[in-house]
């Protein structure tokens, strides 16, 4: 069953077009990597999906429903969650309060505060800390936990390993195994192509706002990927 289906999506910033006729799909329980160079339009694409960018044309279906014109706050309630680039935590809220913001959408499911603390034990000890008192990796855990608290059917993760220590990246990617066990579908935006391919079923590569390659993660060769990545 297809969970997310995007056809012929164009996204604009004013007069500037960032995404050109994009087609994209994610099946239920599937995990997809979205790779591409800086400026390829990955973040723009995710933000357009969740409704944070208004200037978009095309067809976006989520869970059988057209959502291209749905405002972000309603899309969230349908079960499309996002871990935004740069984490974007609420700076004046404690770790626990940040996580509880995920509950505002009132979606029930497997993810509750205790479950998130099980997944990331480091957060339980620091539940009353402010985000700025945490390490970058711990902040990323809060961002992921906050999105999980919405119990999304599809979770979009934007550059979650950016700027983190390798050991932290390992921990976070380890958590994805547990997340997928709950049946959550995933889209991972990554710069690290190898890591992305290792953690997912399928790969999309974006180049200048267009899909330059889609392949099963196991089948794709390094040469193909490099070509699609740099457009050579």
């Amino acid at each position, binding site marked *: 069953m297809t969970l997310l289906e995007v056809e012929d999506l164009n996204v604009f*910033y*004013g007069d*500037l077009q*960032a995404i050109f006729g994009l087609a994209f799909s994610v099946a239920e329980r599937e995990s997809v990597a979205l790779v*591409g160079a*800086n*400026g*390829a*339009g*990955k*973040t*723009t*694409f*995710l*933000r357009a999906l969740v409704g*944070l*960018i*208004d*200037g978009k044309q095309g067809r976006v279906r989520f869970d059988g429903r057209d959502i291209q014109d749905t405002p972000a706050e309603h899309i969230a309630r349908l079960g499309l969650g996002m871990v935004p*680039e740069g984490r974007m935590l609420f700076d004046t809220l404690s770790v626990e309060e940040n996580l509880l913001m995920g509950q505002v959408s009132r979606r029930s499911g497997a993810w509750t505060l205790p479950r998130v603390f099980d997944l990331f034990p480091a957060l339980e000890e620091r539940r009353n800390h402010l985000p700025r008192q945490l390490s970058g990796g711990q902040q990323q855990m809060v961002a992921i936990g906050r999105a999980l608290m919405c119990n999304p059917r599809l979770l979009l993760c*934007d*550059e979650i390993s950016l700027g983190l220590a390798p050991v932290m990246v390992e921990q976070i990617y380890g958590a994805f195994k547990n997340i997928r066990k709950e049946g959550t579908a995933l889209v991972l*935006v990554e710069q690290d192509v190898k890591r992305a391919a290792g953690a997912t079923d399928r790969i999309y590569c974006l180049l200048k706002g267009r899909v330059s390659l889609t392949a099963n993660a196991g089948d794709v060769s390094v040469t193909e990927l490099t070509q699609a990545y740099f457009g050579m």
Partner: protein
Amino acid sequence: MKGIAISYAVTAALLVAGPWLLGEGGLRFATECLLILAMAQMWNLLAGYAGLVSFGHQVFVGIGAYGLFLISDTLDLSPYWVLPIAPLACAVVASVIALPLFRLREAYFSIAMWVFSEIVAALVTKAAWLGGSAGLPLRSSRLLDLDWFEPVLFWIAGGLALGTIGGLFLLMRSGFGLGLMSVRDNDLAAMSVGVDVQRNRFIVFVLSAAGCGLAGAVSFLGNLYVSPAAAFDVNWVVYMMFIVMIGGIGTLEGPIIGTVIFFGLRELITDQLGYSAGWYLVALGTVAVIVMLWSPRGLWPPLRDRFGLKLLGVGRTAPTAPDVPPLAGKVGQLG
């Protein structure tokens, strides 16, 4: 450029001939319009080009007026010769208060200016040597030729309005003006290319205060009488602001259009329809609010764009807000 020079010359000629073209009532009215226009341009210079919204510009109207009355009476000099004192006094006051006020940003600057104005108004009201709350008559008015009083005031007002517009026009075409507008459009970028933001703001603030002071002095010279309630009336800044808001902030043409609407509406509501000044302000404020909601930069920018008009184009136009959602503000970092 040539067209602008010609229309400028025609306007100047009309102003010279004004006293013979307009009746006595018309002349007074025209004088008032021109003075308010000059004040609005000065407020616009500060808000539209330097991004500093002042809610206390009435203080400069008052200081200009009191400065003129005090010096003219003390030295027993014709008020015409003392007029330059008014902008000078305002410039000095502005330079001094700029120091604490420039530490504040946006609304905090705006209201602190207002508080300053209230303080000065209260001190003047309490000062017996300034006539207290009753105010001062212009004793040196006996030195004036009253036959020519109204025409001369009209000429001064006309010169002031034309001078401010011409001066601003030239200023905005100069390197200083370009620097100013680049600061307004993008603080950081302008600073990184070496525009001294605080210095520019300071100069504009002082100029704006001086211009308002001169217009205020001429206005109260026309009344031959000044009182603190009238001179420091918050409505002065309300008028300036509404004119600029309605006409178009950060443009030279905007305040002209705004002044026409301001007085047109006043004549319509208070004169033709016979409503009170309070209702007039209600109507004016409603118009301003609606214009703001419809076009946050006032009437002139959309009119200009729609009809391709160019009256006093200064090479660069005020920026329209880019249609970029806040989250996507950093377009350079598209993933």
